[in-house]
């Protein structure tokens, strides 16, 4: 067996013999999951769906196709169990419904929205999403549906533009024809967009549409938040081993410094994988959470652990002492928890902070698990996996350079 793997397995063994560490690794996220599950009503009644009949108020001021598609999407049969949409004409009434906690969110489509999108107007009006802070999870679901719909429309619009430009450049159409073709293409996209955001099924055997389970967000949210604690704690062992003398002893053995560092970094990753895997399996076994396609779940667990482990490695490479890593690790756990969505949807965050969330493994991991929970396939969570793996590669790369420069390994 490679020596780096032996080092990693040793670290995994030590991590699971640290009773205090285990409490934070496994018990804390599990207890919080159960607590939030109780609060959200996930464990009450005989329903296993957790969230259902989310009240949404729709205001469609658009006289074009996009507004119509959005309203039809919210009223579609596939979302009937999840959403309880209500269409009103008055924006003030929609906002009042939010203030009175009668709805989780209000979606307001501005006048001229379709025209602005199809004609690529520079300052196109935006769809306004009014989210109820009292119902963060439900509001997050509505936000995800709207974002997903808009994302589809944007992809279609850009694709259409590119195609039309190519036709124009190759002389196959005239400028006059280009405008008409572009409009027609956009309208077709709008017409088909609704079907692209229906709730997906996990199998094709005719089972009922997969309902959204709040635990598919809450459980990985807390698991990923405490994963940050775990990986920073594992990273701390690099500094701790140096102080204890076991790292110098390893380096005096017939083993390359790269193998030692590789083993330590692999150890951080394996400990993270073990933690998330245990929590995912436990939530699945105890609460019947259907995580989705197994291969995709495994891939997401591995990628999430890799992304988080990258942060753990970087912190270990930059920190001066174990105490500093512990302090920074706890801070990072909370900051990433807030920014990345582990502590609820990021609706309370200022818009300017939302892109920062992309730097957190929590954000991509939660996105991925939420998508898998509604039946997404491995291919559909590829962007989340890609982001997490890119994050891991970049952070591990920087950490290795920092370790070398500081002569730690």
């Amino acid at each position, binding site marked *: *067996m490679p020596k780096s793997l032996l080092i990693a397995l040793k670290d995994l*063994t030590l991590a699971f013999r640290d009773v205090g560490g285990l409490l934070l690794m496994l018990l804390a996220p599990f207890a919080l999951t159960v607590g939030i599950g109780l609060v959200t009503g996930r464990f009450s009644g005989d329903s296993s769906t957790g969230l259902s009949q989310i009240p949404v108020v729709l205001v469609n001021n658009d006289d074009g196709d996009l507004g119509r598609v959005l309203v039809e999407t919210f009223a579609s049969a596939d979302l009937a169990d999840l959403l309880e949409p209500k269409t009103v004409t008055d924006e003030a009434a929609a906002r009042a419904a939010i203030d009175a906690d009668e709805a989780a969110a209000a979606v307001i489509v501005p006048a001229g929205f379709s025209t602005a999108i199809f004609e690529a107007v520079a300052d196109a009006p935006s769809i306004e999403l009014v989210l109820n802070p009292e119902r963060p999870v439900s509001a997050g679901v509505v936000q995800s549906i709207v974002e997903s719909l808009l994302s589809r429309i944007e992809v279609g619009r850009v694709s259409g533009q590119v195609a039309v430009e190519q036709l124009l450049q190759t002389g196959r159409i005239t400028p006059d024809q280009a405008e008409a073709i572009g409009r027609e293409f956009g309208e077709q996209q709008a017409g088909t967009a609704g079907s692209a955001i229906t709730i997906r099924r996990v199998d094709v055997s005719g089972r009922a549409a997969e309902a959204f389970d709040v635990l598919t967000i809450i459980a990985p949210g807390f698991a990923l938040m405490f994963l940050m604690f775990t990986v920073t704690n594992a990273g701390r062992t690099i500094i701790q081993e140096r102080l204890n*003398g*076991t790292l110098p002893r390893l*380096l*005096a053995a017939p083993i390359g410094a790269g193998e030692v560092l590789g083993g330590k970094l692999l150890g951080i990753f394996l400990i993270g994988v073990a933690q998330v895997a245990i929590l995912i399996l436990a939530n699945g076994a105890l609460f019947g959470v259907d995580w989705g396609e197994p291969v995709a779940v495994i891939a997401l667990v591995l990628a999430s652990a890799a992304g988080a482990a990258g942060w753990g490695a970087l912190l270990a490479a930059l920190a001066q002492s174990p105490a500093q890593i512990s302090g920074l690790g706890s801070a990072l756990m909370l900051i990433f928890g807030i920014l990345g969505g582990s502590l609820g949807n990021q609706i309370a965050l200022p818009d300017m902070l939302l892109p920062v969330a992309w730097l957190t493994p929590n954000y991509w991991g939660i996105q991925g698990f939420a998508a898998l929970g509604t039946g997404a396939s491995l291919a559909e969570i590829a962007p989340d996996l890609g982001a997490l793996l890119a994050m891991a590669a970049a952070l591990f790369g920087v950490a290795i350079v920092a370790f070398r420069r500081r002569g730690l390994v």
Partner: protein
Amino acid sequence: MKNILVARDLRKTYGENEAVKGVSFEIKAGEIFSLLGPNGAGKTTTISMLSGLIAPTAGDADIAGHSIVRDSLRVRERIGVVPQEIALYDDLTARENLTFWGQMYGLSGGRLKTRIAAVLEQIGLSDRANERIKTYSGGMKRRVNIGVGLLHEPQLLFMDEPTVGIDPQSRRAILDTVKALNTQGMAVLYTTHYMEEAAELSDRVGIIDHGKMIALGTQRELAQQIGGRETLSLHIGDDQNSQALAEVVRGLPGVDQASAMDHTVSVIVASAAEALAPVVGAASANGFRIRGVEVTEPDLESVFLHLTGRALRD
């Protein structure tokens, strides 16, 4: 006898500080060689360079025919290292620790099991092998710490102050282990600041101070360096200043060196018979009350005092 280690002008510099200033020595196969010197003399830095842990700033050493600079991996396969601190995993058992470290030295399967059993027997912990290290006493941890260095049966074992901070019984056990290893043919490089340990164990001794090897040889050869001199040890009361007494006697005729430690002043003299009366007289004249006097043959402590003007544990 063939040399297992040849060190040539080893140097290590940290910024402005030259920790080791050109150390050269040899260790023969099957020999116990002690590096004796006070704390901060450069012993650990020297052993760290030889074990491949830090690169020398200049100089080189061959161990079992391999250069520590050019062929560090081969060198590390042939040496065992027992560091000064307890370098073990507290939450693993002794057996798990030995298994892990054995694997790091390339042992596996039946050979690993055999060696672990032999080492546990050798360090006297076979019956407690499955207990976690954190439940062990300091002396037991030290023994496992040594055991790790023996697993792969190295040709040369580096032991860096292995008896620091342990009880006399455990120290005795460790010294006996070193002797037993030597009878099996293993060469040992032993660093210490305890003169008695170097005297008891060593075939040859290198005395190191301020990063320089200031004397090297067998104990007899080293004693000869101070000629026929003898040591007067003056014991004074707890309320008296030994440093002040050392100052008083240092300038007397026939006195070579004088050094104070605790409540004893060691005085190197050409002739104890001739120096005794003037030394005791000067002490009394300056208000010192001598509670006892010993005359001893030159030992490693005397050699160090003669060469540096300081006691080993100053």
